């Protein structure tokens, strides 16, 4: 039997004057993920603890947190692989808080919606065959389609901290995902939504997003591509 000591940031904006850190000791056998540790605490020690969860297999993006000072998915973080000492668990910083480890993701998804995150194409109803796409064209999508919208990149981006209207890495990566899709015919429809003062030019290639991403994606690269596309469009009237 092993033991892990969790130090968890607690705060209920409704009733608490200030955040505090609570400490819990969790006994376990074999392996323990941070998410399993949180469930053990919620079930056995403090029924009021709250956090998001769903797939526990790193595909749904629910349990993004700030663990020992790094962005991680709680379900994918093995306590045994962290440095010895307390496991410090905090909500993703720089985001509004619902309670304890649950951040308010309203703005995050509003910005996602703003960039028109869907394939824009005429005549899509009741098709009789697929739109052909070469494996080479499809490979351009490999990186951005793996985004799980966990919010780590968004929380980690200093440009988001400094400008609340900046769309941030996740929404722009989604714009990139469609702009590079050979099937997308948006031309000018999506462009004004990222080629503006809320959009790509606020990225200063700090690359925190790359470091924060638990799926090891590269939003910065996508944003630079969008910048190039937007500038070409302005200079030569060409997007892709």
């Amino acid at each position: 039997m092993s033991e892990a000591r969790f130090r968890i940031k607690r705060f209920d904006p409704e009733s608490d004057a200030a955040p505090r850190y609570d400490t819990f000791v969790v006994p376990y056998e074999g392996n323990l993920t941070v998410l399993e540790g949180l469930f053990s605490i919620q079930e056995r020690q403090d029924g009021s603890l709250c956090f998001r969860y769903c797939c526990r297999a790193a595909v749904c993006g629910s349990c993004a947190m700030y663990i020992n000072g790094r962005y991680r998915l709680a379900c994918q973080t093995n306590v045994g692989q962290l440095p010895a000492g307390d496991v410090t668990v905090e909500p993703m910083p720089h985001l509004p808080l619902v309670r304890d480890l649950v951040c308010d993701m309203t703005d995050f998804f509003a910005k996602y919606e703003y960039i028109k995150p869907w394939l824009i194409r005429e005549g899509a109803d009741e098709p009789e065959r697929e739109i052909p796409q070469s494996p080479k064209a499809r490979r351009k999508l490999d990186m951005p389609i793996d985004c799980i919208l966990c919010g780590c990149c968004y929380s980690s981006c200093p440009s988001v901290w400094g400008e609340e209207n900046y769309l941030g890495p996740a929404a722009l990566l989604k714009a990139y995902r469609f702009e590079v899709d050979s099937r997308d015919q948006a031309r000018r429809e999506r462009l004004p939504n990222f080629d503006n003062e809320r959009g790509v030019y606020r990225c200063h290639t700090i690359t925190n997003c790359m470091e924060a991403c638990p799926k090891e994606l590269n939003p910065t690269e996508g944003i630079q591509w969008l910048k190039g596309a937007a500038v070409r469009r302005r200079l030569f009237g060409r997007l892709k």
Partner: protein
Amino acid sequence: MIRHQLVIVGGGLAGLRAAVEAKAAGIDVAVLSQVHPGRSHSGAAQGGINAALANNPEGHDDTPEKHAFDTVKGSDYLADQDAVYQMTQDAPPAIFEMEHWGCPFSRYDDGRIAQRPFGGAGFPRTCYGADKTGHYLLHTLVEQAYRRRVTMYIEQFVTSLIVADGRCRGVVAYDMVHGGFEAFVSDAVIIATGGAGRTYSNTTNAIISTGFGAAMAYHAGVPLKDMEFVQFHPTGLYTTNILMTEGCRGEGAYLLNDLGERFMEKYAPSVMELAPRDITARSIWTEILEGRGIGGKDYVYLDLRHLGEQKIAEKLPGIRDLAIHFEGVDPVTEPIPIVPSQHYTMGGIDTDHDGVTVLPGLYAAGECACVSVHGANRLGGNSLLETIVFGRRAGKAVVEFLAGGGGRAAPAAAEVAAAETLASVQTRIDKLSRAAAGENAYDIRTEMIDTMKLNFGIFREARQMQEGIDKLLSLKERLPRIGLRHAGGAFNLDMIRTIELEGMLDVALATAVGAFKRTESRGSHARTDYPNRDDEHWLEHTLALYRPDGPPELAVKPVALGMFEPQERKY
């Protein structure tokens, strides 16, 4: 009180597909989901989605008829054949539609959608996007829901159905973000809440796959059909039961025992590792029971090493990541320890092939429903298909129901019933909050899921099942002694998980009683005391009817045959 014409509970593939359909027809639709829809468990599906596109040269003469035959044979002849044929006919247009909406399927050199071999299929029929097909399909439908401005109430835990004058008229939900309960009054409700995997301790399913949506319908008097049919996926990671897609074997992976043998040769020599899931899971479990698990333990190996790093990177990148992160094993250099794990609930809310239930105004689609297209054993690649085909059909059925006057019935009665349901939910929560914390809900939950794993697992037998039923009934008696340890507020997990438990226990009992009463072996339901299929007595569906104070009552319903004569099932 919030009003919409149609309320959909669940924002996974089935719920969103229904929402898109109803919204396109001009219906005022609202989706209520316990998580952001993009986080639904549909997104965890890996291997692919079946449709007779005939894109693969080996399957150039594939047809919906052949797809239907494979599905019916795979179901051990318990699936309703008219519903299956409906699904396989709807499949190709459903795939092309998802593709036109942006789903990033993997491609052949000529630009067509790629298809891979899957278990129980005559030839490669499973369309895929690497090994993340569910994620790609789910995000595509989330995108379409945003595009069409479908109203979404995110992080709402639906606790009860509102029923007035024998009609379903909405739901009551707990608003997780703001705290508090609200009634949503509607003319129709579609339940699309997924499977009940979490009633077992050894499941591949997401933590929110509790079966609670099915339990709500069940409590409202709608039967649960064929709940004894529980699919064990052959390959869950040994320590966590996280899914390793059938696509691994589709791409050529081996199953190996402690002697290094490809033991499937003994059980399904003609198809080897690509036997249907029930047969493969039983074969693995037999190897383990006979002492040929790795090092005598309760797991075997899934070996991908001979596929090579490049093919793994291209076709199975997610599998490699999961194996490294969750099992500490790199499949490029080491075999993966795997164990059969609860994976899919073939049974569910009794519906027809338009999602219609016996309760007017209530519809169901996806894994929480039982049409039945999977019968006693679902083929891999057919569940994603089921969600979008029957999600769409349920949406369409509601549109027709409302056009036919379904929306005009007694709004005053609905509001009275809504207020009553809301009050009764609140009374119940108050009572739970005031109760002394006698029983810990999580003790009961743990005992329940272990009972399901041990007494209603891959192999079943009367005495063990009777003990299991007795155990579940004793747990049910302990429910009223639970007290909440946290009252009120936002994100009250203690409350949500306690309410869930009651539904889970009733769903588990429906599985248990169905399994005990069905005295035959068919598909996933394998009884050591009744090892043969018994078409004379059991070529029929079971219906579990909820009884508040004890086990469910069981009735039966005929299977729709007509296309394919039941035969002995051999591979």
